[in-house]
């Protein structure tokens, strides 16, 4: 599953402002709402579900990356966003490091395969240090989009 299949381009942020976990999640969900990818009436429910998932265990998986996510009945296909925090956010990550790269995913209720494939793609690309570095240094959403396109075209050899 390529980034183009699930990342909403208009929601990408190169300068996440939030300074804590809940703030980061809210800011990214807001960007999906503004992009028309989630419904306004479902916004609070989606936030609550993502935060509930975080209670099971942080999605800060190490190496400065977090993948907050939830399943939700209001979406009929996987939707996601990417955000970069220059300052870093304390996400209670597995390795104790702050998070700079976020991929937030909202999946339909009964399509675990799509969610896993998206995670697989995200992880494969982020194994590449160059890709990670470029993402963290991106100065604009357009730059991030370009990097995602290059990754989809296997230009990072991941």
């Amino acid at each position, binding site marked *: 599953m390529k980034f183009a299949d699930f990342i909403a381009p208009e929601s990408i942020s190169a300068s996440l402002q939030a300074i804590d976990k809940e703030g980061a999640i809210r800011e990214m969900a807001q960007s999906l709402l503004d992009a028309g990818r989630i419904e306004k009436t479902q916004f609070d429910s989606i936030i609550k579900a993502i935060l509930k998932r975080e209670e099971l*265990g942080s999605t800060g*998986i190490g190496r400065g990356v977090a993948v907050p996510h939830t399943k939700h009945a209001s979406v009929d296909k996987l939707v996601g966003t990417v955000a970069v925090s220059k300052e870093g956010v304390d996400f209670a990550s*597995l390795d104790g490091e702050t998070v700079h790269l976020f991929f937030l995913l909202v999946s339909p209720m009964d399509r*675990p395969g799509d969610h896993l494939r998206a995670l697989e793609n995200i992880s*494969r690309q982020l*194994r590449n240090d160059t890709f990670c570095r470029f993402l963290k240094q991106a100065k604009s959403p357009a730059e991030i989009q370009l990097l995602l396109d290059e990754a989809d075209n296997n230009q990072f050899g991941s």
Partner: protein
Amino acid sequence: MVENTITRTVTVRNRQGIHARPATLIAQLGRRFDAQIVLVKDHERALCTDVLHVLALGLLAGQSLTVEATGPQAEEAVEAMARLIHEELPQIED
């Protein structure tokens, strides 16, 4: 003394496959042992304590993987990891 590598093949049984939460549980378990534990799917290898690499294996329900451990606690590590993946993960809902 030559260190042996202990291996065990297991099947992923939880319906949603090895997504973020199982991968994190695998990493947390791996840190408890004095052993290097590697998960192998086809020819791809992932150090179990690296969640990103484990997720990159893209393990779906029904797929097989091999758990390889080397080190003083290799046997216990393989047993525990196989039990986690084969028995315990299916009982955990995400």
